[in-house]
């Protein structure tokens, strides 16, 4: 399979890195070659954070080249335009406006909800998403995040069916 490029972006503290961990792990469990990369350190003190995930038969560079992201997931409205140049022509943007914040039981699970939305355009079977969430989140958070994931997925499917 040709390499799939996903960029997840937001602000420090929103769970960008956790989301990219789950995505990379799910792709890994699905048997793909995977590379995931981001910058840690000072960028986590409330500043802009973005993480690149690439998977396919064989991935070379761990960074998504500008203008080559197939999917861009953004957790914070102010970060959409900053990250838009990473998206290829015809790429899919999944922003926080997809969801009504009131519909999420815990706003901290927005990262996983938007992953659920992204899952509708990625070739990763459901069972691997679930296993990756379980492996990367504390057990007490499993049910909440499964619900958020399903909610995001349903919202994305509803939107695509109306477009």
């Amino acid at each position, binding site marked *: 399979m040709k390499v799939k490029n996903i960029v997840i972006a937001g602000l420090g503290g929103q769970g960008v890195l956790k989301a990219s961990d789950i995505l*990379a792990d799910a792709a890994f469990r699905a048997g793909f070659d995977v590379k*995931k990369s981001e910058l840690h350190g000072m960028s986590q003190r*409330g500043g802009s954070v973005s993480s690149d995930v690439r998977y396919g038969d064989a991935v070379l560079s*761990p960074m998504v080249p500008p203008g080559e992201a197939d999917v861009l997931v953004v957790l914070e409205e102010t970060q959409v335009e900053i990250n838009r140049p990473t998206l290829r022509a015809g790429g899919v943007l999944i922003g926080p406006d997809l969801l009504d914040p009131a519909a999420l039981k815990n706003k901290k699970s927005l990262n996983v909800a938007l992953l659920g939305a992204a899952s509708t355009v990625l070739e990763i079977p459901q069972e691997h998403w679930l296993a990756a969430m379980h492996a990367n989140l504390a057990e007490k958070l499993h049910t909440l995040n499964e619900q958020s994931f399903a909610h995001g997925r349903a919202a994305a499917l509803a939107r695509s069916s109306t477009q």
Partner: protein
Amino acid sequence: MTGERQLLSGDEAVALAALHAGVRLGTGYPGTPSTEILETFDQLGGHAQWSPNEKVALEVGLGAAFGGARTLVTMKHVGLNVAADPLFTAAYTDIEGGLIVISADDPGLASSQNEQDNRHYARAAALPMLEPVDSQQAYDFTWLAFEISERWKIPVILRLTTRVCHAKTVVHPRAAVSDTPEPSFARNIPARVMIPAYAKPAHQRLRQKLAEIAAWNDAEGPIRLDTGSADLGIVATGIAAVHAREAAPKASQLTIGLTYPLPLGRIRTFAMGVERLVAIEEGDPILADSLRAAGIPVECKPEMYRFGELNVARVRRILAGDTSPEPVPPKGKPPELCQGCSHRGVFEALRDLGCIVAGDIGCYTLGVLPPFSAMDTCVCMGASIGVGLGLRHVLPEAQARRVVSVIGDSTFVHSGITGIAEMVYNPPATGHVVLILDNGTTAMTGQQEHPGTGRLLDHSPTGKISFEALGRAMGVQNVHVVNAQDKDQSLQDLVESLLTKSETSLVIARQPCVLAAPKIRFYEKAAAERISPSSCAADGAGQ
């Protein structure tokens, strides 16, 4: 954890390889992007410990290697400057157990004060250097580094960069060693006592070792050849090699794993088979310069690509000879001092007092940003005290009296104590005021323990250094402990009064890091109840 494929960061891969290769001791000082190596090694069951600084970490590691143990010493690139003194002479010695020194470089300055290229250290100290391109190689090269280290009785530098340390890629581990030789000391004075009479022949031996390693590298070193078009040949190292493969998939490429001493024979043969040879390397043009010095014609990247990280797009530009201005990525939101930071009160006080602030390395460096703008210098770990004293010595009195040095607790233990010695020994005429911002952790790198917290790397209790007792014992004239939050302005009033005295002062502004505080309470409770603190480690506030 053996056998099955895993998705690991380069740091985790090094830790796993260290465990599998039978490392008996891992030492280091936290620093992005190296920190997770020792933390992971500890979580996997290895014996890992934070040292006060990188110099001590390397010295402890060297002792362990003299004793016959496989040893891992970790640090970020600037940490190797601190450890350079033991490094250069450790190169002359014969070690028994394999010794790996990790240099985790930060091209692009994701979280550092400079982007120095530590490949220079391999040449300067005359030590072999391995540079992996991904986590699999980070794993494999850790094993290989021990083999080289033990075969030639020489420390080996494993150089990682941010994108190797933190990128997660797939790793196929090998079987762990079942046993390693029991450490034991065998006296060998000429190999380990570096007085001139022994160091002179040791220097000759070192150069002989390097010549043998270079020949080995040519014959069977970790070199990958991708045969492609003869029109374009790429010789590449480190993470730049995978960018290059993606940027020019049809080119022929030679990827060098052991980048010092170089396999010049292999590179020369490769160069003769291609029309055009380009060196693709991040940072300084070290590979290109070395090949040119060896008489191998090679194109060097234009000067503009010395700065920052490389990526696929930049490698395409290098290959196209494109020196037009690069597109400027949109500016993101900069980091800031945490909204709830318990030390914001200190920066408000210093701002309101109009202080000239000699700052240091840590979260509190963010005090330079608005709304505080309360920092005037920041150079390296511990420099706040020396720089503050220097300013005090030469400035006119009215300005000199406004100078304070601000340093964090972990940084103070790392390199601030000698600054206090300097202050007591050479006090400026106006005296001086040093503030230790004690938040009870090494916050910026992710809340690691240090000798001032009274807890070990795994958060279990140990001896604790008291900064106030230390200041008094060293002869500082005024030593005060205050609450960093400064809700009642007592901190500001105290600093204001100390600035008028022509005496030496140490103010310890104490309040735990808000991010670390819940965990610190847990560790204290665990210590009181004598249970293992590690049960909490996986459930922390990190993300």
